[in-house]
């Protein structure tokens, strides 16, 4: 159902020198080196890049597995997902999400979750189409730098097969503050 056409492979340090066409997007954060290295050291399988036949990087996903198994909170988390403008509308983001979900399934996660700016309607709608729903709103999760007000985030979730009753995605009735999330 997708039209990706690409090479999907593990993200490596050298890709950090080539990802400008993806990261110069205003909604894509370029993190400090430690942040990327932490993910590469701890969850290398969750950091996947898509490469076009001409060698350009098309997009990448970066994620991790975390949470307590005993409390049924063990889950996959999407930390970053971004696709370069010229490679949008191909279903690449969906493909990368599908891969992250598959890895999380294998690890026995109960659900996959992610945070998204409330204002980022394009992304919110895409995640809804992929089966995600808003679990809770996190107040002022994104701090603004240029004097604008801080922005709320949606914590969106999708249950995996281990959560047979889909308990993990029952929406919370009230919004929470960033310090209350784990």
């Amino acid at each position, binding site marked *: *159902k*997708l*039209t*990706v*056409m*690409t*090479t*999907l*492979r*593990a993200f*490596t*340090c*050298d890709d*950090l*020198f*080539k990802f*400008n*066409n993806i*990261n*110069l*997007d*205003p*909604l894509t954060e*370029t*993190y*400090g*080196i*430690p942040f990327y*290295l*932490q993910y*590469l*050291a*701890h969850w*290398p*399988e969750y950091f996947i890049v898509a490469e*076009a*036949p*001409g060698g*350009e990087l098309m997009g990448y996903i970066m994620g991790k597995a975390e949470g307590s198994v005993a409390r049924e909170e063990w889950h996959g988390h999407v930390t970053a997902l971004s696709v370069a*403008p*010229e*490679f*949008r*509308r*191909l279903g690449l983001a969906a493909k990368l999400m599908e*891969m992250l979900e*598959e*890895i999380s399934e*294998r*690890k026995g996660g109960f659900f996959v979750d992610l945070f998204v700016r409330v*204002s*980022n*309607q*394009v992304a919110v709608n895409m995640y809804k189409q992929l089966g995600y729903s808003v679990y809770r709103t996190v107040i002022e999760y994104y701090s603004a730098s240029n004097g604008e007000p801080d922005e709320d985030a949606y914590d969106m979730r999708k249950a995996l097969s281990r959560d047979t009753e889909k308990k993990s995605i029952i929406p919370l009735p009230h919004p929470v503050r960033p310090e209350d999330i784990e």
Partner: protein
Amino acid sequence: MAARGHVQDPNDRRLRPIYDYLDNGNNKMAIQQADKLLKKHKDLHCAKVLKAIGLQRTGKQDEAFTLAQEVAVLEPTDDNSLQALTILYREMHRPELVTKLYEAAVRKVPTSEEYHSHLFMAYARVGEYKKMQQAGMALYKIVPKNPYYFWSVMSLVMQSISAQDEKLSQTMFLPLAERMVEKMVKEEKIEAEAEVQLYFMILERLGKYVEALEVVQGPLGEKLTSELQSRENKCMMMYRRLERWAECNALSCKLLLKNPDDWQFYLLYFDSLFHLIDQSWTPPQEGAHSAEGEVHASTAQALSFMEDRIATEEAKESKHLRGPYLARLELIRRLRERSCPEAQQLGEPLELMFQFFVKFGDKPCCITDLKIFLDLLTPDQHVQFINRLMEAVPLCAPGEDGVALPGDTRALQRHLCVTQLSRSLGQQHALNTEGKLGLIKELKAHYQHGLQFGKSCLKTELQFSDMYCLMAAHVYVDLWLETGESNMLWQCLGLLEEGLSNSSSNAQFKLLLLLLYCRLGAFEPVVDLYSSLDAKHVQHDTIGYLLTRYAESLGQFAAASQSCNFSLRFFHSNQKDTSEYIIQAYKYGAFEKIPEFIGFRNRLNHSLHFAQVRTERMLLDLFLEADISSPLEESVKSMSLCPEEDDIPWDSLRDNRDLTVLVSWDPKDRQLNEEHRQRSLEEDTLWLRLRSLTLRLIGCVSALSHPPASRNSEKTTENGVAAKPSSLQSLLSQLENTLNQATQFSEKQLQVRTVTDRLALSSGCCQCQLSSLQLPLHLQELEATGLGSLLHTSLYMLEKCKGDLLEVKDSHSMTQHFLLENLVYFVETVCIVLWVSNYCGSVLRPLKSSLQKKKKKKKEARNVDQSFSSLQSLLNQALEHIKSQELSLTALELGALSLEAEATFTKTAMDKVQSSYLRSLQEIGELLKKRADTLKSLKI
């Protein structure tokens, strides 16, 4: 900060306030509190270390170190002291001291798992692989946990990677590592996926691909589950290494049936197919074709495989995959390369690409897809191809201006794609000036018209028609380069400014604007553009060059300082940051990442841009400060510049610049290729060599007048005096050689026109800087006459700076921005001349007063006197020139230009350039004025 133990120790309670002060950055209070505590409890060693941390953080490094050593010699074994010392040593950038600390601790408490583990990590931080191997085994003996054993194995692999001797690595380290793993395999003790990964990695490095394959396919391979398709990918890698093309082919076939869109497997499928054909491979008499199943070993089979893939796509109602269609084109290319007549059976590329366009033309990536297959068309097909595609674009009937426009965003995207392809085929470049202007008009019409589709776009989104605007700008640049008419550049800047006002997140607009403003010598607008790109961290290396290349040479010293600082801060944090994650990779068993992280650290440490900003930052500091706010030797000392030391790794410089960050649809022969990249690297390296030698020579001049006392004790006594004339002489001849090379290089370049040429070479500044730096040598023989001829050259250089930066002629505004760059290099040269003169003066001054000296010497002294007066008048001339430029720039009324009504954005661009020139002139003028003031105090 540090973990403070689980059991509540009374000392913990006493220390807590100090920890809190340190955590809150209140170092003074932390020191006071520690002193108070130490009065009562003399033996509370940790308090001393915490005090040392406070001292270190307030800049009292020496005191901090002494205090820390008092504790370290006692070889502490309490957690608090050990952890505090570890933090302190890390902040002091002395990680090797942490190893000493824990070596002592494990000696005293030999059974401590914790201390042994800290020791291992301490070795890892400094890359002591052999000791890591031993520490890992020691740990395993105390606590037989698998990870410890495999830390030791990985340390052997690291010894093999870092060994200079390839033989040693292949015959000793790796086999030893292999045996260690085999032992665990035999004892059935393998537990984790990471351990299998490591085993595979060792076998692969040993070239034991058959064994590696067996591991992946055997029971151990079942542990490889984290990564998707991990086993398949590893098998494929081994098949290729082993040239088992049959398996390679069969496996890619299988994977393509599963995912007909994965490009890498098409390439492997074709590669293996042709190898098999060349080997005349035939299937075995009975049984399976290969371990991976059915093999395709003839063109006919490949053709039918491709046709099946396409038929499957065609049978779908919607959501067609692009992979099979593009793979068909790839197969045609490969068959043609081998002159296989079967290529025709797959169809005519023009027709196939047309069909592809019909299916996928409304996707923004269609241009990227088709671009790589354009060379399948013959030149005489180009026009036909574009016409054919254009017919498939639904456009409305042409309006008044004769331009037919698309009715929705899909049609727009299709039309845009054809336009991009047309540019890629060189059709736009082939147009004459009139044709190009017509094209620009058409592109602008499409751009303006397309804006209506994006009215509801958020400001973080791009406009649908942005690319028309960018392409029109590219055509303007073509025209500007062809005709040299600055009007084209103004129009281009105006158009991009307009584009940016409609689409404030468009990075491509910003990047092109940034580059063009720099080419015009206007750095001021660049600062805002770059900061709105929000470039951070690694981007300071990959695109930071756009900023640091121009800031100083365009006379915006404050901005230059700042941009160098951004980059330097990033590079300096790299060393510490990466070590931390190498350790994490051990902890999490991500063994294959360890060499990768080390390679990454080296790539950043050896970055060309790092060396450039390091050198430029120091030069800039000297030009701006030395002998103004503090004496030259103070400045040299504070940046610990040592003329004998060359800290640039010339042989392993890495070019990390992202030169393809700007989008281009230029035809292949105009695109940036490996040769351009190489030439640009060569040029930048030559320039860096010039600058670094100049810097070191300035250091020499400073050391000549003030031979360093025993301050840097070890270094100076070992090497003798810091800057003997001999090192001066050697650096000078290196500078002279490099200058010759650079001149030859730039002469060669004149025929090919480069992007980054530096004017300092052509204006003669470098030569002049060289001759001024030669003066101290001549002075050894009391030949100060050199100063006179130097002044003559400087005067000539100043002449090259004269002229109007910006003027209005025939209602066009023209720039002579190269004058600005010349002026900056002139000022740099003046700085150097002054430092050298200062030194000459200091040598000759005592001679003048001494009447007994020979006549000749007195004459020389008099010569110097005269030279100083001439120097003074040179500076005055330069200052007058700058003043008059400032006045005429301020008076220049750009509003008087008869610009068309729509050209308000062009006016904006002009205003920005005007304001930037003015600011540069002010900064240059201020610096020169300060220099003139110091000259007054210089006179004998």
